[in-house]
């Protein structure tokens, strides 16, 4: 069971059951992006508000498995307050970690680090990146 325990850390299940920053807002200062994985029903929308090159707020909503939904919550916490350029580095680093590539272990990724176990379940990489892709797109051209 060690692999499974590695994938489903307590903190992941906690974010799944008690998501932070969940729920979209009707504010034109937010940019919004929607990503879905139709074959499994993962469906996440992310909103970001940026001012002076810094992420002021991140919101998310959607449905999906625990990896997908929790990672939206974790992502929102991780990126909140970061500079956009920092966020981009974190996103790249996160993708590398998830895909089992080399990544910078010293970069502060907050709770996102707990998703490192996904690398052993390649079929779940998509689940763990849907929300991050939405964030990445939402931050584009900021």
């Amino acid at each position: 069971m060690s692999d499974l325990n590695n994938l489903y850390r307590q903190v992941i299940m906690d974010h799944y059951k008690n998501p932070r920053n969940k729920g979209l807002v009707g504010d034109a200062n937010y940019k919004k992006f929607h990503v879905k994985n139709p074959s499994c029903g993962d469906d996440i929308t992310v909103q970001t508000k940026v001012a002076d090159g810094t992420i002021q707020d991140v919101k998310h909503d959607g449905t999906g498995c625990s990896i997908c939904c929790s990672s939206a919550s974790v992502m929102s916490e991780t990126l909140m307050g970061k500079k956009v350029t920092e966020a981009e580095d974190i996103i790249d680093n996160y993708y590398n970690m998830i895909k089992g590539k080399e990544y910078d272990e010293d970069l502060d990724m907050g709770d996102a680090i707990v998703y490192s176990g996904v690398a052993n379940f390649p079929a779940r990489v998509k689940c763990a990146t849907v929300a991050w892709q939405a964030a990445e797109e939402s931050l584009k051209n900021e």
Partner: protein
Amino acid sequence: MYKKDFPVLNKGITYLDSGASSLKPSIVMEAMNDYYNNYGVNVHRGVYEISHIATEMYEAARERVAGFINADTEEVVFTRGASSSLNIVASSYGLANVNEGDEIILSELEHHSHLLPWQNVAKVKKAKLVYIPLTKEGRITVDNFKSVLSDKTKVVALTYVSNVMGYVSPLDEIINIAHQNEIVVSVDAAQAAPHKKIDVKKLDCDFLSFSAHKMCGPTGVGVLYGKKELLNSMDPIEFGGDMNDDVGLYDATFKDAPYKFETGTMPIAEVIGFKTAVEYLESIGMDEIQRHEKTLRDYAVEKMLKIDGVKVYNKDSETGILAFNIENVHPHDAASVFDKNGVCLRAGHHCAQPLVNWLGEVATLRASFYIYNTKEDVDKFIESVIEARDFFGQF
């Protein structure tokens, strides 16, 4: 007993995703290698010996596959797969014969590949899609079919076996009634051909579509069966080499079916491998295959019903498909427990979103059994079900 014929199973996995694609026995790969290594050239056109051999093998496959469903040889069109076959029916027969205000009867059990082509026909021709109400269990019945039949019905498009529920549709009677009303019936047999004996003459369907890759055959090839008069009355939807008689600069004449639907270089190796797959299945016997699957399924259902926190959607299904979920566990999460244990099954909407919606879910788990599965596979599967329930129960 048949496990040893399937090289993938040497890896020690428990393969319960035959509904998506079956594994292939070595002899099928051998038949294709034999083609590529010994006479791997084009058909129908060469005037040298190995091209002639390739042509004979290709046409012998058509004869064999026709025999498998008791069709006449010229009623078997080879296609890229069931999805292509179903699209030919809708695009060639459907667009030409369905008119504004006409009705097309289908069911929420349909696979997207049988649903979307008729959605397109309905849109283009301003026709109406009419769904047979399903029973509580999710079944098509003759009575419910009759309840939506009208004098506007032009086409009935139904699956023979549902790929999510495994139910066998009561097609004999439905086709009979349809024909009394001069309605044409397209049957999606993608999940039927691998698992039960089909006799198109007895069934009397107008069109029947299936794929090789779900019945021990290679990827890249499928069949469109159509009644001869129907096929010959239809326009081709792909035009090009080999399907024509005479080609002028502004006009061309086409061959009779099946050739007018087979344009350009066909999947030759695949057709040849398909023949071997059909021979393999027949050597076991379709009735024996069906019996074997049913035995495993009944064994699995019996065990499943005893497990708390598990929901089985199709406990009375007559074929080897088990649709279920683990309560409070997203199917994708559960799937990783199965994956870790080497149990391969499917989580998702199985290309049948309307049905999964009908079930009130976003996704389900599906285990599907085939000839190479054993009771030990079921036991491993059941262990993983319990492990998944317990693992996620702890949070």
